[in-house]
C-alpha cells in the first residue's frame, strides 16, 4: 500500500519535473488536468506556467523608486479618522494615535501601495479593463477625469445592485466585465461598505481598495491603507494609478512592436 503511494508520488514528481524544463523553453504551455487538480490544493504548482515577467519577483516597473514617503506625507495620506470610529480590522496599518486622531504608518502604506500599483501595471500590460469606483462626492469628477485620461472606465454615481452580477437582466446582452476594480473610497455616505465590493468578489474580479481607518477591508484583494477623504490624498493616489496604467500600456506597446506577428 505504502509502496504504491510512494511510486505514485515519484511518478507524479518525475512527470512534474519533466514538464518544468519544457515550460521554461517553450513559452506557451497549458497545464494538464492533473496539475490543475493539484493546484486547487497547492496553487504554487502552477508557477512554471505563468508568464516570465511574473516569474521573477522583482519590481518590473520600478514603483519602489516612484513612490516617496515625503510626497505621501505632503499629500496627507497618513491622516486617519478619530479613534472612536476605527475598524477592528484596520488596526494593523496604524502607526498610532495622536490626541484621538489615527495616524497611518506610511512605511506600511508604501509597501501595499507599490504592490497594488504593480498589479495595476501588470493588468494594463495584458490589455485589461480597469474600472475606477468611488462614492465620495468631492472626488467623483477627479476620478472620472483620471479614468478617461488613461482610456479606462469609472463608476461614481449610485450603484445599482446587480450591475456586475445581473448584467443579462439589466443590460439585455452579454457584456465584458472589468478585469480589475479600483475603489477610491470603500464606504458609502451611510458608512456602509460599497455594494460593488461584494459583487466583484462574487464574479471573481480582483479589487484594489483605499481603506481608511474606519473602512472594512473584507473582500478586497489589494488594500491600500490611506486617507480617502482629503482631496489632496485622492489626487495623489489617482496620479500614481494613472502612472501605473500608462506604464503598463507603454510596456504592452513595446512588446507588440517587438513581435509584430502577434
Amino acid at each position, binding site marked *: 500500500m505504502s509502496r504504491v503511494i510512494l511510486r505514485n508520488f515519484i511518478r507524479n514528481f518525475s512527470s512534474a519535473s519533466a514538464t518544468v524544463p519544457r515550460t521554461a523553453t517553450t513559452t506557451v504551455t497549458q497545464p494538464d488536468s492533473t496539475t490543475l487538480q493539484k493546484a486547487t490544493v497547492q496553487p504554487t504548482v502552477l508557477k512554471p506556467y505563468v508568464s516570465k515577467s511574473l516569474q521573477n519577483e522583482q519590481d518590473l516597473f520600478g514603483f519602489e523608486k516612484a513612490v516617496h*514617503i*515625503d510626497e505621501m*506625507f505632503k499629500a496627507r495620506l497618513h*491622516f486617519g479618522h*478619530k479613534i*472612536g470610529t476605527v475598524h477592528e480590522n484596520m488596526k494593523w496599518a496604524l502607526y498610532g494615535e495622536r*490626541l484621538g486622531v489615527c495616524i497611518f504608518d506610511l512605511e506600511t502604506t508604501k509597501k501595499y501601495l507599490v504592490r497594488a500599483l504593480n498589479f495595476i501595471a501588470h493588468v494594463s500590460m495584458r490589455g485589461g479593463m480597469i474600472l475606477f469606483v468611488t462614492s465620495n462626492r468631492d472626488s467623483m469628477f477627479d476620478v472620472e477625469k483620471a479614468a478617461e485620461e488613461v482610456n479606462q472606465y469609472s463608476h461614481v454615481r449610485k450603484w445599482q445592485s446587480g450591475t456586475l452580477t445581473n448584467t443579462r437582466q439589466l443590460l439585455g446582452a452579454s457584456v465584458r466585465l472589468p478585469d480589475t476594480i479600483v475603489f477610491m473610497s470603500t464606504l458609502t455616505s451611510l458608512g456602509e461598505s460599497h455594494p460593488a465590493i461584494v459583487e466583484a468578489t462574487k464574479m471573481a474580479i480582483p479589487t484594489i481598495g483605499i481603506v481608511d481607518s474606519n473602512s472594512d477591508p473584507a473582500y478586497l484583494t489589494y488594500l491600500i491603507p490611506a*486617507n480617502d*477623504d482629503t482631496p489632496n490624498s485622492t489626487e495623489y493616489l489617482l496620479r500614481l494609478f494613472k502612472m501605473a496604467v500608462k506604464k503598463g500600456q507603454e510596456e504592452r506597446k513595446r512588446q507588440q512592436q517587438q513581435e509584430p506577428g502577434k
Partner: protein
Amino acid sequence: MFRAIIRARPVKQFVECRAAYSTPESIIDFVDSVAETSESQNKSFASLLRHSKFMQLGDFNGRLVVGKIAQRIQDDLYIDFGLKFNAVCKAPSVGSESYRSGARVLIRLLDPELSERFLGSNKDLTLLEADAVLVRLLSNTNIARKPKVPAEKEADKPEIPAE
C-alpha cells in the same frame, strides 16, 4: 495650481514658483513649499511626523490656525487648514464678498473631526468635517505691505499646520 507646484520635485518647483511670483499669496505658498521640501526627502516617516506642524500644534482645542478657503457655497466657507477635513464656517455679513475661495483666513480650531457616539452603537458617527470658529480674514493688504519677509510675519502668527 499651487497644489500642483507643491507636489513637484524641488528643482522644478523652484523654477515654477519663480514664474508664479506675481501675486502676494503665491509668495506664502512659495515660502511654505521651500520650507517643506528642503531636506524632507529620504527622511523616515517617523521623523517626518515628529517634525510636522501637526505635532507642533499640540492640543487642537482653541488653537489659532491659518486656513485657505477651498470652496464657498452661498454663505458656507469650506476652509482647508492642512488636516484631514475642511472646517465649515459661515461668512460674516460685514465684508462678505472678500471671503472668496483661495483667500486666507484665521480660524480658531475646536475639533479636527466632528464625531459622536450615539446611544446603542459601538462606533462613532462622523460628520466628515472639522469644527472651527472663523476669527478674521488675513487681509491681502497686510501681506502686500511687506512681501519680502513673509517668514518674519509668520513668527508672530500662530501655528500653520501641514499645508
